[in-house]
């Protein structure tokens, strides 16, 4: 254990120094050993500087100045809801805490949505799954996915073409209402319908 630890430790020093492009001062190769072996330690705090190792730090791979203004840039896309020619007036459905089950009210809502979607097979819709703020980021993203998927599954069972329906989960990252309490949270546990732009004619 000790030997591997020491080897790594030394490997680190070698790597550091190899990465350092410039060693500013001479004198690395003299002095320290004799100082360190002095049993009295009298010269330990000598001002000659011979006991010092010069250190130059290498470049920070992610930059220390934060100047990467285009970092992570993706194609500029308008991600907001776009105006469409036909408003299908699709209503959202709502869920219980940590659940993706559709109740009778939701099924009635989706039956109406299914009629509108079947009447406009040229329209594509994104079903967004959302969660309330309670719980963790990743689990809520997976739960939102289950909500959107269950909503799509039910619409398809009512005769809607699966090709009209995309799904995406926003987890708890895009709440509709902000605050605490079930009046707030219940609004955020939903499958939300967003119409996509109609195809070009």
């Amino acid at each position: 254990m000790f030997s591997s630890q020491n080897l790594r430790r030394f490997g680190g020093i070698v790597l550091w120094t190899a990465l350092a492009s410039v060693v500013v001062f001479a004198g690395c190769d003299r002095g320290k050993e004799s100082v360190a072996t002095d049993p009295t330690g009298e010269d330990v705090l000598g001002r000659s500087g011979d006991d010092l190792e010069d250190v130059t730090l290498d470049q920070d791979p992610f930059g220390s100045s934060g100047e990467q203004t285009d970092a992570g840039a993706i194609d500029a896309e308008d991600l907001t809801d776009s105006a469409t020619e036909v408003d299908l007036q699709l209503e959202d459905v709502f869920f219980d805490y940590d659940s993706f089950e559709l109740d009778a009210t939701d099924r009635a809502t989706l039956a109406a949505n299914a009629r509108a979607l079947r009447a406009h097979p040229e329209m594509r819709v994104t079903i967004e799954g959302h969660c309330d703020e309670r719980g963790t980021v990743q689990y809520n993203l997976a739960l939102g996915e289950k909500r959107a998927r269950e909503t799509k599954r039910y619409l398809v069972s009512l005769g809607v073409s699966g090709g009209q329906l995309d799904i995406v989960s926003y987890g708890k990252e895009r709440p509709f209402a902000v605050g605490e309490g079930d009046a707030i949270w219940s609004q955020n546990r939903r499958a939300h319908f967003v119409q996509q732009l109609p195809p070009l004619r």
Partner: protein
Amino acid sequence: MSVSISSPARKGPKPGRGVLLLAGLIAGILGVQRAEAQPRPVFDLEVNRTGAERVVVSLDPLDVDSPVEGAQEAAADLAGRLLRDLIYSGWVGVLTPLPDGVEIPGPLPGAGRTDEESRVGARISLRLSGVRPDQMVWEARLVQVEPRSQLLGKRYVIEMGTSPRQVHHLADQIVRELTGEAGIAQTRILFSRKVGTGRELFLVDYDGEHLRQITRNGSLNLVPRWSPDGSRICYTSYWKGRQRLLVLEGATGKSRKIADYRGLNLGASWSPDGTELVVTLSRDGNPEIYRILPTGKVLQRLTFEPSIECSPMFDPTGHQVVFTSDRTGVPQVYVMDREGSRRRRLSLQGRYNESAAWSPRGDRIAFVSRRNGRFQVFVVAPDASELRAVTGAEDGNNEDPAWAPDGRHLVVSSDRDGQRRLWVLDVDSGFARPLTNGAVDDNGPHWGPPPVAPSADPTRRNR
């Protein structure tokens, strides 16, 4: 609370001198020489991880030799920052009162300082000289008190008026010299911050300084994860209403898409050797866990349940994966091997356990557990023993635990002061400090490796 006490110096040669001599030879070939072959005393704190064990250091009066205006104040500032780094390591206490002019910027743990000179194990001597503000020479010596010998000497060229990285480098060197532990002073934390209607990725130094934004795409950018060598970041982003996994290359600052399967593209965790990721995808109809290459190619599907399977993370050996499943009807934390077999449940209490993070030391796993309607961070051993709460009812909600490379500190997101911000917790001592400030909404932190990452080596796990 814990009390600062010094540990006795251990004398005598350390094992592994042959390795040291070989390494010294290599270093000599490269034109570097250090007196590493000398047997050196070390303050051995590993025997007792109570969190109260600290090596106590004192600071000599500052030696400033410079006509540059403000040199005295600059020297005091450097010294205060150095001492803060040492205290933040968790392993070092500082003798007070401090020399004239030196103050340690807070917040500081109550047990980080002591006024008992008899406990001082080593002295720090700092000297600032030079005639140009942008090229000041900063010299540091670390001297063991008994037996008296110099443990370390460093010389840096620094620019006055900055918060130089050299301070963090020196602090890590001192911590390593005193304790054998790798410090965390040079590390940074990556996280996701709400900006407008989206979230962008940010970086901040481990002490809360040097905040910078690293994505600007106006979308939701979530759960970023460093590659083990710190050169790349994998994260989830949204594009045209779809989730996908991107990798941001540090060298170029550019992101490239690695996966945009239908549905979820989420929660990447790198294997320790950086050659694979474990992720959550729903391309086969349900959130399941997969191993993929950094190109996005699926290597293996690991779970086959109709329930939610998510939040995978490799252990430091790369042989096991900790993850969340709600196959019982509620989310619980499980462990499986990298092929998906030999599953066992790790969280045995509570009805909402999630966001597991395996310590880089391998010896414990942090996760989030809902208790009395609030979310708290717990740690547990890999055999499901030694369950312990890290946060409690008075700490608000605490989520997203991520380990520091030292396996001792956690960064979490917490709303304990009313804003969802990042906090650093010392799991051993209980000390907590805010990492980000202001009216923010931060989550998904991930603690990066040091510039050279010895503590990321999974073989060094014995404590």
